[in-house]
Each structure stands twice: as C-alpha cells, then as structure tokens.
C-alpha cells in the first residue's frame, strides 16, 4: 500500500502538472511540487522501514506481475532518489529555467522521480523495463525544452541523442529480458536471482548476459557508449543534470546488479573481462578529457564517466566486495555529483557560462561558502579519505586486485593498476579546477565579485555536503544495509 503511494503520488502530481495543470502559476506549482517530493521522501522512509510491498497480476498472459518492493540493494537508491527529488524541486526556487511553463518543468521532474522509484522497486524484469522507459520522455523534455537557451540546435540534438542512445539500450535490454524470461519461465527477479536464471545452459546465459550488459552499458553509460552523456549534461538545466547524474545513471548500474550479475552469473562471468577493460578505459578516458576540458559542467559530466568506470570495474570483479564497492560508489557518486551540479549550475547562473579559460576572481576571496563547497565536492570526487568518494574507489580497486576465483586474474590486475592511475588523474584534474576557480590562478581584478550562496541554495548545498561527509566518515551505514542482499546474490569468496 505504502509503496503504491510512493510511486503513485509523484506520478499523479507530475502527470497532472504536465497535462491539466500546465497553466498553473509558479507560486502555486512550486510549493505543490516541493510538498509532493517531501511527502514522497516520507513515504520512501516508511516503505523502507516497513519493508512494504505490493504484488498482483498485471499481464497474466506474459506472466508479468505488478510487483514492487524493496531489499538491501534498492533501499539506499530509493532513499537517494527521494532525497534528490526534494533537492531538485526545492532548487526551483534557485533557478527556474525558461523554455516553457514552470508547471511542466516541475511535473517532468516529478515524473522522472516516479519512474526512477518504480525502477528501483520493481521486482519483475519486464516491469523494470517499463519503469525505466517512463523517465525517457520527461527527461527529453527537460533537456530539449528547458536546457541552455542557445544554441537551440545543440539543445535539440543533445536531447534527441540522449533519447535515441537510451532507446537503443532499452530495446537491446528488452530482447535480453524477453530471452531470459522465455528461457527461465518466470519474470520474477527474486526467482530469477534465486536459481531460475543460473539453471540455464551456458550458451543461453551468455546470450542473455550479452544483451543485458550491452543494453545497460548504454544507459550507465560505460565507455565506449558514453558519448550521449556530456552533451546532455552540458545542455540540461541544473535540476535535470542533478537527476541525470544522481538518479538516471544509477538506474543503469542498478540494472547491471539486478539483471546480468544476479540472474545469469555464468554468462556475466564470461563477459566480465570485457566489462572490466571497458570500465578501466572509461576511468582513464574520463580523467584525460577532464584534464583539458574548458566547460566546467562538461568536465563534471566526464568525471561521471570515470566514476561509472569504477562501478563497472567493481562489478566485473565478481566478488562480494566488488558488489559492495559498486553499490557504495553508486550512491556516493549520486550525492557527490548532485552537489557538484547544484554548485556548477549556480556558478553558471552567476557567470553566464562556466568556461574555465575566462579569468575570474578567486572564489575563496569573493564567496568563501561556495568556495568551501567546491573544494569539498572536488575532494570527494578525487576520492579523499573521509569523504564519500573514497570508499567506493578504494574498494573497487581492491576488488579488482583480488577478484573472484572464476575471473581472469591477469586482466583484472591490469585493470586495477589502470584504475589506480585513473584515480591519480582524478586528483590532477580536481586540483586543476580548484586552482583555477577556487584559488584564482588567473584572477581578473576588474571582474565583478561572485555573489556568495544564500537562502535555499545554501541549504541544499549544506545538506548535500553533510551527506558527502557522513558517507565518508561512516560508510558502514550503507555497507551494512547492502551486505545481506549482496551475500544472497552470492558471487565468489
């Protein structure tokens, strides 16, 4: 019951805001969206604490059930999504992009949130895909209509590229799911993970795993399928970027854990070396691009590619530590990237652009609070101990160093070394950004001062910063939540 409300509330309010309530004035729409998001967060907490579930027939002809519920793997992501929902709706007080009615903008945010929550709670493989598709159109609207005003053509192209890439991923994923469901005879993710999938013969497992991994790799995105992400991030409004990084990318990695890793372990093991190499290349590729990228928003986007590389590498290791690392890095990246995108979006609003080549006064002098948050976010991004980013990266490299027995050790060792190099690159580009923006390596004395953060923005940045620190100081909060479910999926020693 509670879980139905959890999904139904943001979906209903969101759909109403984009259809019947399009003309709603901003002073009514904004509180409505924020209250909805806050109520959704409360419902998420209730769902998680009460382990609420719903299960009834949906498409009996296909054996698909309307089955939603939470377990250790989905709990952190449900909470993260609901919290990010509150962040993005509150952020509407900071920045309300032009491009259409505010109600449509806020409604699209809520529909994306509802789709993400449905994806994380779906316990049926086909339902998972349908929920996944729900976020496509509203996200397309957010990027294509509410994105950076010019150039208009680039905006349209970025939005279309996002939809088409993701649609390719979805359709390949759909084929994989259908093949899995047809061969195993059930669409229930719990049964599939509980042995129905593992009982398939090797060839089928490999085919299923290949389709699932390729489909989800586009959505994560994993190198070399990442090319849709930077333009989408660069174009999207701040709230859209936050949702994209903190929620949509998580749906891809969550899918990798839920579908190929949990259901067809043998097939996934065969593909693991390729996945590990793709992850390692992504880490280095993202880091190298970040070293030279001038647009700060695009830079954060490429750093996401690198962080997703760590997640994929950890998943490829096949060990329990690897799964834990992937899930932790997933959530950590959600919080850190939300922080960075809120911050960079705020800077873009103040400066008009976020070109690093333009000389500006040092952030630490003109706006110390913004400067502090920037340093904190960058430090977490480069994996400084004591902050959220650290545990995911360290555990990922460790798990690749000590992979499960059935994985090719040499390949994963090499990937671990490459990933460690990538972590060093991350330090380099984060220090570069800190040097330019925070310390003001190229100051311009005549430029106007950057106004410091205050009001809603300050609260949002403060809460996100707190999350970064808490996850870094007390990682067991999260790791203990996921431990049981990870142990059930199994993996190696």
């Amino acid at each position, binding site marked *: 019951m509670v879980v139905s409300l959890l999904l139904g509330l943001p979906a209903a309010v969101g*759909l109403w805001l984009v*259809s019947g309530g*399009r003309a709603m004035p901003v002073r009514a729409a904004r509180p409505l969206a924020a209250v909805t998001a806050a109520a959704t967060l409360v419902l998420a907490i209730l769902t998680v604490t009460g382990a609420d579930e719903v299960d009834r*027939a*949906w*498409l*009996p*002809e*296909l054996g698909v059930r309307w089955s939603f519920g939470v377990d250790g793997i989905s709990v952190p992501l449900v909470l993260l999504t609901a919290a990010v929902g509150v962040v993005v709706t509150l952020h509407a007080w900071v920045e309300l992009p032009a*491009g*259409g009615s505010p109600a449509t903008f806020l409604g699209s945010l809520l*529909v994306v949130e509802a*789709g993400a929550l449905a994806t994380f709670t779906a316990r049926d493989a*086909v339902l998972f*895909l*349908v929920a996944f*598709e*729900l976020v*496509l*159109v509203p996200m*397309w*609207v957010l990027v*294509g*209509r509410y994105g950076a005003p010019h150039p208009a053509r680039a905006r*349209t192209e970025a939005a*279309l590229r996002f*939809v*088409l890439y993701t*649609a*390719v991923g*979805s*359709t*390949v994923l*759909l*084929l994989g799911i*259908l*093949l899995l*469901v*047809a061969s195993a005879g059930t669409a229930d993710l719990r049964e599939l993970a509980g042995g129905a999938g593992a009982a398939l013969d090797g060839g089928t497992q490999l085919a299923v795993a290949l389709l699932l991994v390729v489909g989800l790799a586009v959505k994560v995105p994993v190198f070399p399928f990442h090319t849709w992400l930077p333009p989408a991030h660069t174009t999207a409004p701040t709230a859209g970027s936050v949702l994209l990084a903190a929620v949509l990318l998580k749906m891809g990695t969550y899918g990798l854990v839920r579908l190929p890793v949990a259901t067809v372990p043998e097939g996934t093991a065969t593909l693991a070396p390729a996945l590990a190499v793709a992850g390692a290349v992504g880490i280095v590729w993202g880091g190298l691009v970040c070293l030279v990228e001038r647009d700060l928003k695009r830079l954060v986007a490429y750093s996401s590619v690198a962080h997703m590389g760590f997640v994929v590498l950890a998943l490829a290791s096949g060990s329990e530590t690897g799964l834990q690392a992937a899930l932790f890095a997933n959530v950590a990246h959600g919080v850190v990237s939300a922080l960075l995108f809120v911050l960079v979006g705020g800077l873009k609003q103040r400066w008009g652009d976020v070109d690093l080549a333009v000389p500006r006064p040092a952030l630490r002098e003109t706006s110390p609070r913004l400067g502090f948050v920037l340093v904190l976010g960058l430090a977490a991004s480069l994996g400084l101990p004591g902050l959220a980013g650290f545990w995911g990266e360290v555990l990922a490299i460790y798990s690749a160093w000590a992979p499960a027995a059935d994985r090719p050790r040499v390949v994963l060792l090499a990937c671990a070394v490459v990933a460690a190099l990538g972590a060093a690159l991350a330090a380099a580009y984060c220090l570069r950004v800190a040097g330019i923006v925070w310390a003001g390596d190229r100051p311009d004395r005549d430029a106007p001062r950057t106004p410091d953060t205050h009001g809603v923005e300050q609260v949002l940045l403060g809460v996100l910063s707190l999350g970064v620190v808490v996850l870094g100081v007390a990682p067991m909060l999260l790791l203990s939540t996921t431990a049981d479910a990870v142990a059930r999926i199994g993996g190696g020693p």
Partner: protein
Amino acid sequence: MTPSLVTVDWLVLAPALAPVAGVVLVLLGDAVLPRRFGGAAVALAALALVAGAVAAVWLPRAAGGAVSTLCLPAPDGACLWTAGARASTLQAGVLLAGAAALALLHEGRPRPRDGAVAATLLLAACTGGVTVAAATDLGTWLVALELATVPAVALVALRGTRASAHGGLSLLVTSLASFGLLVLGAALWLTATGDATFSRTGAAAAWADPDRQVVLVLAVTLLVAGLGFKLSAVPFHAWTPQAYAGADLGTTAFLAAASKLSAVAALLVVLAALTDLPGGPGPLAVVVGVPAVLSLLLGTLVALRQDDPVRLLAWSTIAQAGWVLVPLTAFSDAGLRAAAAYVLVYAAASLVALAVLGRTGARTLEDHRGLLRRDPLAGGTLTLALLVLAGLPPGVVGLVVKIVALAPVVEAGVVPVAVAAVLAVVVGIAVYLRWVAVLLSRQVTPSTLEEPSTARRPATLVVLVVGTGLLVVASALPAGLLAAAT
C-alpha cells in the same frame, strides 16, 4: 418443408447484420427523401456501426466463449461463422473504426457531396471487415475480403479531384492484383489441404506430407502477399502514401484503421490454422518475416523525412504493418494474440492522430508548432497518440504491445526480425518525437490555420475523446486489452 442446409442463428450474425440493416435503411431513406437525407444517413449509419460493435463485444461474453453459426448438418458439423474473443474484438474494432471514419468524413473539408452514398459505402466495407474476421471457409473469406476493399476504392475516388482519382486508380489496380493473388492462394490452399475451410486439421495433414507441404507454403505465400497489399506491407505498400494524401481525411482514417483491422483479421484466420506446426514453421517464417523486416525498416526510414503529416502517417502505417507481422513470424497462439492487440492499439492511436488533423486542418508539421499551447486538447491527445505509436510511456500501452509482439519472436528465436525491430524502435522514436517536439515548441508561427471550433466539429471531438480514453484505459490496464485479443 425440407430441412435447411445450414442452421442460422441470426443473433450471432448481429455484428454483420447491423451494418447491413444500416445500408438498407440509408438507401430507403435516400430514396424517400432524395438529397435531403445526408445528415440523417450519417447518424443512422453511425448508430448501426455502434450497435454492431456492442453486439460483437457482448455476444461472446454472454455465450461464455466462441459463438458459431451457419453450421452444416451433422456429422461434419463445420460452422462457417465462428467468432471467438479475438475475432469479436477485431469486429468491434472494425465497426468503431468505421464509425470514427464516418465522423471524420462527415465533418471533412470539403464535405462529401452525398452523405448517403459515403455512408452506404462505409457500411458495406465494414460489413465485409466484420464477416472476414469470423469466416472460416474460403468462399466467405474471399467475398467478405473483397466487400471490405472495393467500397474503399469508391470512397477514395468519390472526392472527384485529380489526386483522389489517381489514388483511387492505384488502389483499384492494387485491389485487383491482390484479389488475383488471394484467389490463386485460396485455390492452392484447397489443393494442398483438400478442405475448403481454414481448419487446423486440414493444414496439419498437408504439412505432414512433403509434397503437399510445398503447395501449402506456396498458398500461404500468395495469401500473405495478397493481404500484404491491404496491410500496406512492403513490397506491396506503394499505393499507401498516394491514396492517403489524395483522399479526404475520413477516407484516410478508414484506410488507416478499419481497413487494416479487416486485413489483420483476415490474416489471423489463415494463420490460426498454422500455429504450432510440428518441426517449426520453417519456410513460413520467411514468408511472413521478409515483409515484416522490409516494412519496419523502409517505413520508419522514409517516415523520418516526411513533412506532410498525412504522408508521415502513411509511412508510419507501413512501419506499423511491419510491427503487426513481427509476432506472426513465430506462428504461435501468443503471436496471433500479439498481432491482434498491436493492430487494435495502432488503429486507436492513428484515429486520434487523424482526428487531430481534421480538427486543426494542418497540412505540414510546422502548422502544428506550439499546438499544445494553442489548443491543449488537440495537442495533448496528439502527443499521447504519437507516444503510443512510438512505444514510449506515458503511452504505456504502446510499449506493452511492442513487448508482447517481441516476446514470441524471441521465444521462437527469429533473430533477423528481432534485430530489425530494434532498429525500427529507435528510428521510430525519432520519427514521432520529431512531431512531438513541434507540438511542444514555444514559438507559435503565425499561420492560416483555423482556430479550433468544437461547435462545428462535435463528431471529430467525440472521436478524439473516445480514442484517447481507450488509449488511457488500455495504458492503465493493459491486461484487459490482451485478454480481449486472446
């Protein structure tokens, strides 16, 4: 008194008899009040169609299963009219789509010169479509199929313009060619099975004998080709864009929805005899798979380049015909159900899109710029219809039927069709989102479009609202649609 050859249950025939009664009444009225009966004729025809649809939905429910009549005396006892849940749903679909086409036709620009004639033709075509869905013998099937097609030719040509004459001519030539193929196919079917009905036992016997199997495959090839014309499947699609663009919107709506439903109903009658063949469908999968793949690819790719909304819908019809054929390549009961569900959803979405075109009078995509802001009802319903056609939530039902269509293909392992379907999904999304982007756009180009006036087009509005309502309900409860298509 001699015992009659067949037993007739008139009530079971009601879905077909209702439009026939409509024809008689319209013709009578027109004879009594010549020239002044047009408006009443349309109302009468619509009433007949809706009554037939109600009967089609109600009959199998009341009987608790398939209803049959026109049964031959025992011991053979074959029934020439058998309508199960799927056939009845398709019948209701044909009749409602016919009513919708009639509404658009009646409120089209220019209005049909003679409402009674148009109504009669439409009713006749719907009678054919209803009958073919329940026909089990070759004779009834062929005659009903022609009855469903020939009036459409007259409808296209009736407008009297040069373009419509061209469209009518190409449709006529196409129909004749397809009829030739169908007759030949039916003859070969009879040769192969020795049975003048589409029965599973006859087909199974023919399939088991290698010599007769070749003839059966040839028969199915010809039948699929003949129906491919009516279904607008590549390579039999060439008439479609011309006829769509040349005819008025009401006729286009008839061709796009009612006519497609009839063609699919006819195809399902044939293929239902061929499900679960021992040793797999083999060459039959190729016979259906080749037009499916070609339609998917060519239809979506060409639709991407269209700027006239009617032509875009014409090419999208071709692509969607490919989607209807996709699940049929599996030759399973699940495939038949998927094809029926798919064509029903496609028909509803197309009718909504065409009703919006009737309401706005747009001739290019650009005419719709900012429609969502100018006319939220038309813009919103068109957005939903296009998302259903693209298979993207919130048009959930569009996605569900695509999943249902792909499931039997994946299960049967027809890889080329699955690969083509992936490409078609992606390019198709680009096709429909291109139009949706125009609808959502902020700028409104000053245009000569008429302002929406519901007062002058109440019937179009009804089509819009009912069609959207069906899509919304099916999106919320897709299980109902699938059960009706089983």
